[in-house]
Each structure stands twice: as structure tokens, then as C-alpha cells.
């Protein structure tokens, strides 16, 4: 839709500029700077030549293998947004290929601490379920997320996650990864018109963050520091 | 060549008279080709049509004759025609003028004759010592 807006804007701006110029009779065709016709001709030829050079340069330095490729279509199909299922507690419905890792630990003391060592927000969503089981075993599983911007997979969430298990503590450490900055160049809509993707596939993001699902026996006292946000699951 | 602007005569007549004088002066012998209207126009900075009119006057008085496509040529008897024309046109006009003027000034006729004679003497004097 932005093309028509741009078009209407152009129409409005040029309309009154043109009408204002047309008012005074002969100034409407005076040159802007005092260049005669041959030097203007050469100015124009020079300009087009420079553009040509830039075209060649652009062709050469455009990255042959960009570090981001289009995400494969199947990957998107196979991906299931596991948030709803996890929040209802039925872990088993999440497809296996999305599981990054599973842990199970015999708790020694009857308290368990979860510490967020990350200066930013949590790099994952924490699901906590208090279970009845009596043998004091705590199970946890980590689910992979998917971060797509304009059909490109921009990162692998796992790189930002580091979990440190000790007997009675889980620390979510901070990985000092540099921030990502991306820029997208797209041709004007008119250019894309003939391609099938009629709809403007640009400027949309679908990001499904990773999730850590922990089943903690009720018998254990859970101590999560106050600034960690987590979801309590009632199965 | 500049025309005497204020003269009463229209330009084409002045051209005709100038041509007549040229013929009298012997610039043009009989059967010589005379200036074309374009040459005359160039000479006097006048419109060729006007010059053409001057030539046609001379043609009408049989001073010039036309050869198809070649232009105008002086007729053999051109000189005599001009002389007689001048005599009975221009001279008579001048003479009438003199007579009218004499009457107005009440100059007796014979006194007028004497004046003519002395004028003749003077011009002869001038001719002799030229």
C-alpha cells in the first residue's frame, strides 16, 4: 500500500510546485545554473557514466554467499509453535526435532534455586511445573526456537543460551554475543509486481523464542530470584 | 548613389532621367545592353520593381528595345529621341515658367530676350575656356 501513498504524495507535492512555476510566464524554462547546452550534455553523460560505474561496483561487491540464506520452506512447515502446548503442560505433543536437550537430576537437598545471570531479559521462556512424583527427580527439557525476519533465519537462539546445572541450582549464564544489525534492500514495489509474491512479503518477522520446561517435585522448595519471569504450569 | 530625396519626381522617373543622361553622355552606345533592373536596384538601393518601371518608361518612348531573356538594349536613334523629348517636354515647361515669371515682374518682352542672349554669351564663354 505504501506505493499508492507515495504516488499520492508525489502528486500533491508536484502539483503545487508545477502550478507555482507555471504562474510566472517565462521563468518556467530558465536553466538552474548557467550552463550552456554542451556542458549540460556532458554533465548528463558524466552522471550516467558514474551510475554505470556504481552498477558494476555493486555487481562485484555484492556478497556471493550472504551469511543469511532464505529459510527452507520445510523448516517453517515442521516448526510448531509449542507455547500453547507447553503452557498447558502437555510436553509430549512437541515434535521431537524441536527438542534441544533433556536433563534429569536427582535432587539432593530439598530446595532448588534458579538464578538468572543475564543482564538482559531471559534468553528463553521458563516453564515450571510442580509435579507429584515422589522419587525427588527433577526433569528439564529445552526446546529450540525459530527467529525469521523476511524469510531469513537471522540467528540460532541456542548460541545465546548457556545452562549451568549444579546439584541444587540452575544458572542461566550470559553469553556476550554482539548485537545483530541487519539491513534489507528491496526494489520498489513496481519491480516486484511481476513476481508471484504479490503480497508484500517484506517487513514481517516471526520469532518464536526457545523454552525451558522444568518439572520440579512439589516436595522441593523452589527459589527463583525475583526478576526472573516464569510461567507456572498447572497440569 | 543617393537620390535627391526632396525632389518632387517619383523615384522611377528620376531613374529614367538618370539613364537618359547616361545615354546622352555616351556611356551607352546604340545596341549596348543597359543596366538590368536588379543592377539599378543595387546601384540606387531601391526596389527592383521601381527600377523596372523606369526602364519601361524608356522602352515606351522607344529609347530602349527588349531582347527576350537578355534584357534591354539602347535603340540606334535613342539619343535623338531623348533630345526631342527633353526639348518639347522639359524645355517648354521651363520656358513657360520664365514667361509667367516675366509677366508677374512686368518685364517687357525684349528685355527678356536680352537677358537670354547674355545668359547664352556667358555659357559660350564658359564652354570656350573649358
Amino acid at each position, binding site marked *: 500500500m505504501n506505493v499508492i501513498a507515495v504516488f499520492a504524495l508525489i502528486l500533491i507535492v508536484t502539483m503545487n510546485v*508545477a502550478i507555482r512555476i507555471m504562474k510566472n510566464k517565462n521563468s518556467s524554462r530558465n536553466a538552474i545554473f548557467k550552463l550552456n547546452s554542451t556542458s549540460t550534455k556532458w554533465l548528463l553523460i558524466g552522471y550516467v557514466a558514474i551510475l554505470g560505474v556504481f552498477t558494476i561496483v555493486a555487481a562485484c561487491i555484492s556478497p556471493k554467499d550472504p551469511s543469511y540464506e532464505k529459510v527452507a520452506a520445510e523448516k517453517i512447515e515442521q516448526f510448531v509453535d509449542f507455547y500453547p502446548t507447553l503452557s498447558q503442560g502437555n510436553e509430549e505433543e512437541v515434535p521431537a526435532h524441536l527438542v534441544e536437550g533433556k536433563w534429569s537430576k536427582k535432587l539432593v537437598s530439598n530446595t532448588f534455586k534458579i538464578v538468572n545471570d543475564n543482564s538482559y531479559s531471559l534468553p528463553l521462556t521458563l516453564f515450571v511445573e510442580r509435579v507429584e512424583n515422589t522419587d525427588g527427580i527433577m526433569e528439564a527439557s529445552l526446546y529450540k526456537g525459530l527467529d525469521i525476519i523476511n524469510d531469513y533465519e537471522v540467528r540460532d537462539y541456542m548460541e545465546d543460551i548457556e545452562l549451568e546445572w549444579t546439584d541444587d541450582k540452575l544458572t542461566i549464564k550470559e553469553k556476550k554475543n554482539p548485537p545483530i544489525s541487519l539491513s534489507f534492500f528491496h526494489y520498489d514495489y513496481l519491480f516486484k509486481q511481476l513476481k508471484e509474491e504479490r503480497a508484500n512479503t517484506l517487513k514481517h518477522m516471526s520469532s518464536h523464542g526457545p523454552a525451558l520446561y522444568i518439572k520440579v517435585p512439589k516436595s522441593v522448595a523452589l527459589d527463583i530470584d525475583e526478576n526472573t519471569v516464569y510461567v507456572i504450569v498447572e497440569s | 548613389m543617393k537620390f535627391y530625396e526632396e525632389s518632387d519626381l517619383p523615384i522611377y522617373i528620376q531613374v529614367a532621367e538618370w539613364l537618359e543622361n547616361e545615354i546622352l553622355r555616351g556611356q551607352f552606345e546604340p545596341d549596348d545592353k543597359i543596366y538590368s533592373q536588379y543592377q539599378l536596384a543595387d546601384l540606387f538601393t531601391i526596389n527592383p520593381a521601381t527600377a523596372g518601371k523606369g526602364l519601361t518608361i524608356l522602352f515606351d518612348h522607344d529609347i530602349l528595345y527588349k531582347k527576350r531573356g537578355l534584357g534591354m538594349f539602347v535603340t540606334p536613334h535613342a539619343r535623338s529621341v531623348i533630345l526631342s523629348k527633353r526639348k518639347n517636354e522639359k524645355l517648354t515647361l521651363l520656358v513657360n515658367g520664365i514667361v509667367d515669371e516675366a509677366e508677374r515682374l512686368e518685364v517687357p518682352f525684349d528685355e527678356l530676350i536680352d537677358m537670354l542672349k547674355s545668359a547664352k554669351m556667358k555659357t559660350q564663354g564658359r564652354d570656350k575656356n573649358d
Partner: protein
Amino acid sequence: MSLNEVSLIDVVRKQVHFKWKSYTGIFQSLLILQILGLFISTLGEGSMSEPGYGRSISVQYYSSSILVGMTAMWLFINSMLLTTSAYREDDFTFVSTRWSRLLANFTFIISLALLGTVTSFLSMNVLKVYLFIKNDELILTNSLTFFETISSLVVLLSYLILICAAAYTIGSIIQRNKWVGFGLSMLLIVLGAISVDYEGTPINFLIYFIMFDSSLMLLLFKLSLANGFLFFISWMVSDNQEVRV
């Protein structure tokens, strides 16, 4: 004095050559507008940053629509100015009739549209080079195959010609009768603006009808139909226009 026979095409060709040679103001304004467009487009079209998990991502969008917009603006203004009396009197100082002037002007604005298309397409590369240098990660969303590029250029060219033809027609109407011209153009603006927000309006349908069409041939046919219609109106309006009144 023999009269020279003269052919219409010959005169039109000379007139177009004359326009290319003497309208230096038009070409200078092309450079200014496009360079200005380049600067504006380097600012990017918008940016987003992604909330949530782990390290932050900031996304910058760059597009060529500003460049194309500037070129369209340049074409619109100059096509309108071509109908002013100053240009008209220039034409009639030399050899011209109303018909030859209209043909010459249309040929000229088509050549301007061609120049505009080529330069705006090429100047996108300036933007690309700048972006490559500026930040390492530049993703070209729709890399076009050679055939697609050509057909897109043809599409762009026909749109620009449509803009020129519309501007020329409005200009001719304004020359013929100022108030009708202004009225018409204001109406066009309002409709243009409305069509952006409310889907149902007729102009919106018209724009959709013309613009949104996937098959190249059909699109070109529709555009040339529209151009022909505008050409006809310009002729109707300017065929007995006086000069040096």
C-alpha cells in the same frame, strides 16, 4: 521562389533534437532531484528492532521507492511545464504546427521517461554500494533475474510514461482554461489520497485495475491504452491553441 516540401516526421525529429539541446534546465533538475533522492534513500525507509530473547537485533530497511518517486516527480513537473506558453512560443519561433508540437512533446517526454527509468534504476546501485560499504550485512531481498529486471524496467518505464502523459494532459487543460485545469488536478489529488485509505472508491479500483496485474503483456496493453487516451485529450485540448497572443 520554390517552396520546400517538408515531411512531418522530419520536422518532429528536428523539434525533439532541438528540445534535447535547449532544455538544459530540465536535465539539470533531473540531476538535482535524483541526487537528493539518493541522500534521502540512504536514510532508510524504516527500522525495527526485535524484542525478546538474548541479544537484540536491529533491522534497517532500504528501498528504491524514494528514488523512483523523485524521478516521477521530476517527470511530472517538467511534463506539465512543457505546456506553458514560454516553451510553446519557443517551438513556434522555429518550424512547428500544433500537431507536430504535440508529437514532438510526447516523443520528448517518452525519451525523458526512458532517461528517468535508466538513471533511477542505475542510481539504485549507488545506494547498494553505499550500503555494502556502510554495514556488512546487507540482504537483497529480491534479486531479479536478467529477464525480470528487463520486464520490471519496462513496467517502470510505462508507469513513468503514464505519469508524463497525465501531467501533459493536465498542463494542456490548464493552459486552455486555468480553472478547469486546477479543479481537475485538485480532484485528482483528493481521489488519490482517498483511494489510499478507503478501498472501495472508483479511483482505487482504477488504480488496481491498471497497476495490479501480473501478466506483463496485459499490463503494457492497459498502460498504452491509457496513454493513448491521454494523448487524445491533449490533442483535443491543444489543437487550436494560439501563440503569441
